[in-house]
């Protein structure tokens, strides 16, 4: 299988994508504490 070419990302693209990601997350992680994910499995 041929390896897929991964285009380099520019600083501007990084900032744009990061902002979009944070907008999608919203304020849902404000009450986050380390280990929450695993505790949700118990």
């Amino acid at each position: 299988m041929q390896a897929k070419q991964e285009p380099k990302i520019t600083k501007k693209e990084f900032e744009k994508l990061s902002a979009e990601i944070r907008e999608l997350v919203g304020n849902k992680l404000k009450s986050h504490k380390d280990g929450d994910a695993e505790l949700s499995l118990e």
Partner: protein
Amino acid sequence: MQIVDTVVLLAFLDDNDPRFEKANAHVQTISFRQDILVPSATMLELDLELKTHGVDDTARAGIHERLARLIPSSRVLPLTSEVLGRAAELSKTAKWRGSYFDTMIAATGLEYKADAAITTDRKFANLGLKITF
């Protein structure tokens, strides 16, 4: 080589987190430095954190679509049987609550000969990895 712990990605997502600036810089380096790698277990724990905190399926899909550009698959280390076996071994000493993902992330680092884990979680030192942030 260094591996990225979930706390880095979580701090990257929250610009109010006191670790945000450094976490943001670490994530930015992932796409152009070949010696900074992300365990699959880190990605999985991140997704479960998002799901646990009520980020809906559509939003999670959009987040991962964008994260794939920031963290290309060539920078993600697989979760193999060797990693899971090593994680199970580490679990014998990792008795703290919530150590399941820690052991998988540390085991990935150990299996792939990482020098250190990028994390603020000092417990990684108990699992055989130096820590840096």
